[in-house]
């Protein structure tokens, strides 16, 4: 019988071929640092961050548009705090506010209902950004807007689905050997969505929770699958992730949204990776369908290579030199869940 200490030793003493494990959730990235997971494992087991921060992959064109709304007379943009600092092609919402834009931060999309009812003379636009986790809440918001006949609240959506992004990475980035699958996205999608991926790409897809123990256990599961060359999808966050996911949530998503292609900042178009309002609900949409996406990438910014797992943030020439959380150049440095921002704030841990 093996003890936990022996498990840790196995992970630490491993000297075989490199195993590159990508996590596609910003909260995982953060927790890996907070719990010092890298200190428990061999340098041959690499933990690489993927496109797990919705703010970082929201197109600059979308951000420009939400900023335009904030600057229009009698308009107000409602948003999660994460979106405030990320720049579009020119400004961020915070900068727009400084020049007179109207922006309010909310913790829940549903709080927008009361604000809209109490301020009927203002047209509100909710910046509906996020992954599968947040999508059903936007659907609930829309349902309430319709039920309460609210006329002055619309959604500008940039809701993305992470499963097509994982598929994109499997097809295009051959250096990734395994995936630590996102815990709270999987609460909605269910664990079964990873079964086909594991079969098709012959890689481990392991869903993990967010405590240090959860992540270490998921890494060990991946490690064992790689050693035994027996690859499968495995759910190690069973307290909240079921095989089929949250059926009520999926039903309400399907009622209001449809899957369309979408543009990911720094990556490009990924097929069927957006949830956009269906035609019959476009009266509640503030113009989420764009004909083209303009992106003035900052010179030398390597955010794209960071979120595709090609380099670590420390390999970017701007990291910690000209790009810092207080003066961010790329989107990944701005958001609290952005890979570069997390690496910057935890740099003591890496050393």
């Amino acid at each position: 019988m093996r003890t936990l200490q022996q498990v840790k030793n196995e992970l630490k003493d491993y000297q075989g071929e490199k195993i590159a494990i990508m996590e596609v959730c910003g909260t995982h990235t953060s927790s890996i640092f907070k719990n010092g997971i890298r200190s428990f494992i061999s340098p041959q087991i690499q933990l690489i961050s993927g496109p797990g921060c919705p703010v970082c992959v929201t197109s600059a064109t979308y951000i420009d548009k939400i900023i335009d709304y904030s600057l229009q007379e009698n308009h107000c943009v409602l948003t999660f705090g994460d979106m405030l600092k990320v720049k579009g092609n020119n400004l961020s919402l915070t900068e727009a506010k400084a020049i007179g834009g109207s922006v309010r931060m909310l913790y829940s999309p549903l709080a927008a209902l009361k604000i809209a009812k109490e301020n009927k003379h203002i047209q509100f636009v909710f910046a509906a950004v996020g992954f599968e986790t947040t999508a059903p809440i936007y659907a609930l918001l829309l349902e309430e807007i319709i039920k309460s006949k609210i006329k002055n609240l619309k959604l500008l959506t940039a809701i993305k689905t992470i499963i097509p992004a994982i598929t994109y990475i499997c097809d295009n980035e051959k250096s990734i050997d395994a995936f630590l699958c996102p815990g709270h996205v999987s609460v909605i999608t269910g664990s079964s969505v990873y079964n086909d991926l594991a079969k098709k790409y012959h890689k481990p897809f392991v869903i993990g929770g967010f405590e240090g123990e959860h992540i270490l256990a998921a890494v060990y599961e991946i490690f064992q699958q790689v050693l035994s060359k027996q690859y499968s999808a495995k759910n190690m966050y069973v307290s909240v992730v079921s095989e089929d996911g949250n059926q009520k949530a999926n039903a309400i998503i399907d009622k209001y949204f449809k899957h369309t292609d979408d543009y990911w900042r720094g990556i490009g178009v990924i097929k069927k990776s957006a949830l956009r309002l269906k035609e019959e609900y476009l009266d509640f949409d503030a113009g989420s369908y764009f004909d083209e996406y303009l992106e003035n990438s900052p010179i030398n910014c390597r955010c794209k290579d960071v979120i595709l797992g090609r380099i670590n943030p420390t390999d970017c020439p701007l990291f910690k030199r000209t790009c810092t959380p207080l003066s961010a150049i790329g989107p990944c440095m701005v958001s609290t869940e952005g890979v570069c921002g997390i690496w910057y704030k935890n740099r003591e841990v890496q050393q």
Partner: protein
Amino acid sequence: MCVAVPGKIIEINGDKAKVDIMNNIVEVNIRLVSVQIGDYVLIHAGCVLEVLKKDLAEEILWMFNELQEGANENSSAG
């Protein structure tokens, strides 16, 4: 952005419930789940996303049992 926290249902009023999140009482929407008073739930952006099936301690215990089984299988196979 997908951050979610656990809490305990203490009162239910139609589509809304009061939850205790580390001694903070917060009102949340429960349209996406079926809950009862006393249930532990996972909350994201003002909504309950799922009911916690086991407590965390039990899950971690389960994980390490699994790990041990996996390790034993591997060692017996090798």
